[in-house]
């Protein structure tokens, strides 16, 4: 039978019971020191995981709440009976880190709602999903591109790999609701019209033609493929004139989870726009109830 040496004073030295060592053995001290350092390093790494997965969530939740209440104040402080022509969206002059819209994904639950922040710096993404500067704004022709964390920092895009084609991504702005729906996935493109395309939710969703041929709802790309957020995703130069642009939305996050080797990309297309009725605040579009 063996006993574990705990490093304490020897209970009974079998070799020389009458001669306890006068000073601690130097080798033992060094080995114990190294062991303690290694255990400490392990604990620090564990603590880092706790920080990354839980502590950043708490910090980000606070910042997200703050951004949301700021946006709500901004939206509410306007006189309720503004004339029709003044109810147009204004996105110019947005500063880095300012919230300007909310996104809802009803299939993730009725409470899935995040305020979208302008800019994609580390600091902005800590608050919530960040809009790539220079890409379109909600409802505009072009590609409204948004990045979000998948691990920690509130992890707004934790589950976007589970989004299915035709799932709604509802973007709420000051005066409108924009309903985007995810494009068909790669294995659904063939036979779309007779297959999934018959689902009533898929109204307005179909594989896009023209310059957009080959664009699918979900793809996994290398981090260097910045063209996924271009007006025609995947094509750097060939931006069509505004009139010919499809109105798309693109979500980007890291892939696989806990790694930054690749990026997970989700493309969606605008299918519907609901203007908010100023006389009925709190009214929500029917798409928000698609929670199953």
């Amino acid at each position, binding site marked *: 039978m063996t006993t574990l040496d705990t*490093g304490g004073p020897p209970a009974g030295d079998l070799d020389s019971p009458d001669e306890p060592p006068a000073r601690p053995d130097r080798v033992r001290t060094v080995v*114990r*020191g190294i062991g*303690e*350092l290694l255990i*400490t390093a392990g604990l*620090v790494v564990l*603590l*880092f995981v706790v*920080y*990354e997965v839980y*502590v950043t969530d708490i910090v980000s939740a606070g910042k997200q709440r703050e951004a949301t209440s700021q946006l709500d104040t901004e939206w509410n402080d306007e006189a309720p009976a503004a004339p029709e022509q003044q109810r147009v969206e204004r996105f110019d002059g947005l500063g880095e880190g300012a919230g300007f819209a909310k996104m809802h994904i009803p299939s993730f639950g009725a409470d899935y709602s995040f305020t979208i922040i302008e800019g*994609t710096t*580390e600091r902005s*993404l800590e608050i919530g999903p*960040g809009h*790539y500067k220079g890409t379109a704004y909600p409802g505009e022709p072009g590609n409204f591109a948004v*990045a*979000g*964390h*998948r*691990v*920690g*920092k509130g992890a707004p*895009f934790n589950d976007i790999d589970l989004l299915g084609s035709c799932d709604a991504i509802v973007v709420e702005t000051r005066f409108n609701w924009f309903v985007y729906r995810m494009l068909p996935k790669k294995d659904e493109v063939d036979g779309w019209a007779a297959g999934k395309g018959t689902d009533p939710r898929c109204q307005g969703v179909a594989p896009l033609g023209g310059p957009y041929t080959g664009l699918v709802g979900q793809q996994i*790309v290398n*981090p*260097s*493929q*910045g063209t*996924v*957020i271009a007006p025609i995703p995947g094509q750097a130069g060939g931006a069509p004139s505004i009139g010919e642009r499809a109105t798309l939305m693109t979500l*980007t*996050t*890291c892939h696989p989870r*806990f*790694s*930054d*080797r690749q*990026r997970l990309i989700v493309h969606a297309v605008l299918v519907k726009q609901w203007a908010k009725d100023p006389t009925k605040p709190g009214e929500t579009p029917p798409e928000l109830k698609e929670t199953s």
Partner: protein
Amino acid sequence: MYGWIWRHLPGPTAVRVLTAVVLVAGVIALLMLVVFPWVEPKLPFNQVTTQ
């Protein structure tokens, strides 16, 4: 290392325990508030944007 620190803490056992707890809490706070936020963007697992 820990034994050495323990032997150099002053006072009776109760005070030593208290000091040790405060030391550990301080180290954790330093890690959480300063070291981790600094080191985190340098690590290759939370980049979500394309270039």
